[in-house]
């Protein structure tokens, strides 16, 4: 965290809306991407991101700087996601919506791929799609770890703080997640070798 970010956070603690505007600008992309991969759909990702920043607004005075701000922020985002899951389990959605969500990856591919594309791009699209599906199949706790480590560049220590787990547990679970992913990514073997 640089001096500028520290100054923004101090202003945020005084509930200065302009400072929050800067803070949202700095972090919303990271939180949105984390939320999107965790939830698997854009609507939930938006809701999780928005709720995360609202909770930050309400709780920022409690941020003492023991952890980095980003670690603290991801802990909130992760909690928001878990709360949403809890609510979903209590009030499951109708199957039509699920059907829509399931269709979405197919639809996305249709939209992202409107005409003939270079082979390289098609391979990248296929790779992304398989990767996304493989990650989606992981249990939530493993998915969170993989995303925090590989997309958000969080260290084992930071992941342990975000998820309230001992560092050894993070390491062993992350290892198991990667082994599971390796098996799921077997269809990509050909792409590995090109």
């Amino acid at each position, binding site marked *: 965290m640089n001096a500028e970010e520290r100054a923004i956070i101090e202003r945020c603690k005084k509930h200065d809306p302009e400072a929050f505007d800067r803070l949202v600008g700095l972090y919303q*992309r990271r939180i949105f991407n984390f939320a999107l991969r965790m939830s698997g759909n854009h609507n939930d990702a938006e809701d999780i991101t928005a709720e995360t920043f609202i909770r930050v607004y*309400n709780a920022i005075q409690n941020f003492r700087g023991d952890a980095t701000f980003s670690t603290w922020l991801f802990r909130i985002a992760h909690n928001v996601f878990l709360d949403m899951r809890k609510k979903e389990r209590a009030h499951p959605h109708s199957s039509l919506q699920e059907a829509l969500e399931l269709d979405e990856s197919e639809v996305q591919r249709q939209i992202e791929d409107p005409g003939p594309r270079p082979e390289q791009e098609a391979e990248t699209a296929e790779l992304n799609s398989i990767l996304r599906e493989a990650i989606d199949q992981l249990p939530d706790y493993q998915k969170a770890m993989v995303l925090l480590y590989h997309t958000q560049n969080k260290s084992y220590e930071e992941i342990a703080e975000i998820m309230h787990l001992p560092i050894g547990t993070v390491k062993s679970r992350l290892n198991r997640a990667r082994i599971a992913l390796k098996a799921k990514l077997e269809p990509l073997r050909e792409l590995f070798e090109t």
Partner: protein
Amino acid sequence: MNCETVRENLSDLIDGTLEQPLRFAIENHFQDCQACRDEFETFEKTWSLLDQIPWVEPPEHLHRRIMTAIRTLHSQEEAAAPVPLWRRCWEALSVPIPARASMGWTATAVAGILAIGMIAQVGTGNITMWMSPTVKFSQTTSASLLRAVRVAPAVSVQGNTATVAFDLKNSSSALTVRSYVLDENADRQWAPWMLSSLAPTSSLRDFQTVKLQADGESMVTVPVNAANLPGKVGVAVIRMTSGVSERYLAVFVPTGSPRDRVVTTQPAQDVFSSVIWKVVNDHRVTVMVDGQVDGIVGVPTASNPLECLEALAAQSDLVLDVQPNGIYTLTRKY
């Protein structure tokens, strides 16, 4: 060193966090074990694939949605903050009665400019006016994708039920309809993004969600059950999706009988919904709103709904249409 121990430590080996003796032992093991070496290579490739997970840009409206929610919270805090003692004393001592009258007139005029029908009065340091909860609409898609989902202008309202005819152009299109009642008792709970996001939240009362997915023309009936709640406005929010694109439409329906209410001043973004509320309540018409509306709008007092909505449309960059069935529509200029 056995194969199981090697495989347990592959992450740390790639990560470079393994203690040196263990690393050497594993590397020695690789020399004799082709299976573990293959396992390591595949593992390393998986690792590098994971590092390539693509990033997605958040939708443009997300930042605005978050900030609108934060500004609403901020305004509520400011409104709730007690007036400092020094200020109360100063006002009591230094403002003569004619000046107070003038202040009251100014406050009324400002409120009148902001939105029709607001009743402003100078009370104990706060201006109070009756306003609706915040309503905001968003659409996050390109015009070409929007054409995939078309809502026919066939909305009819009978009693407390709005019926919307829609035409889904392809099987990936769907509608999610959520109806609820705007209720002044929930003013503290409202956030501007609630209507546009269809986010599940306990503060939205009397809502129900209908999800439909179909080919060709279909009809959906949206009940807005507010008959027993006098002075409320029923709202059906319709989320239309086609693949990853989405669009929102809100239908405001008059319910019960109009009744004035008083709530604490809300931020300026509320003015838009306040106007809609007023038009619906006073003129007993149905208003449909589609698209994204931001910013402050100022609508002069008018005696008929058409004038109110024309002024609102002009200032909000909306297109106003009056449908043959008498329903007013406000549509975003795409």
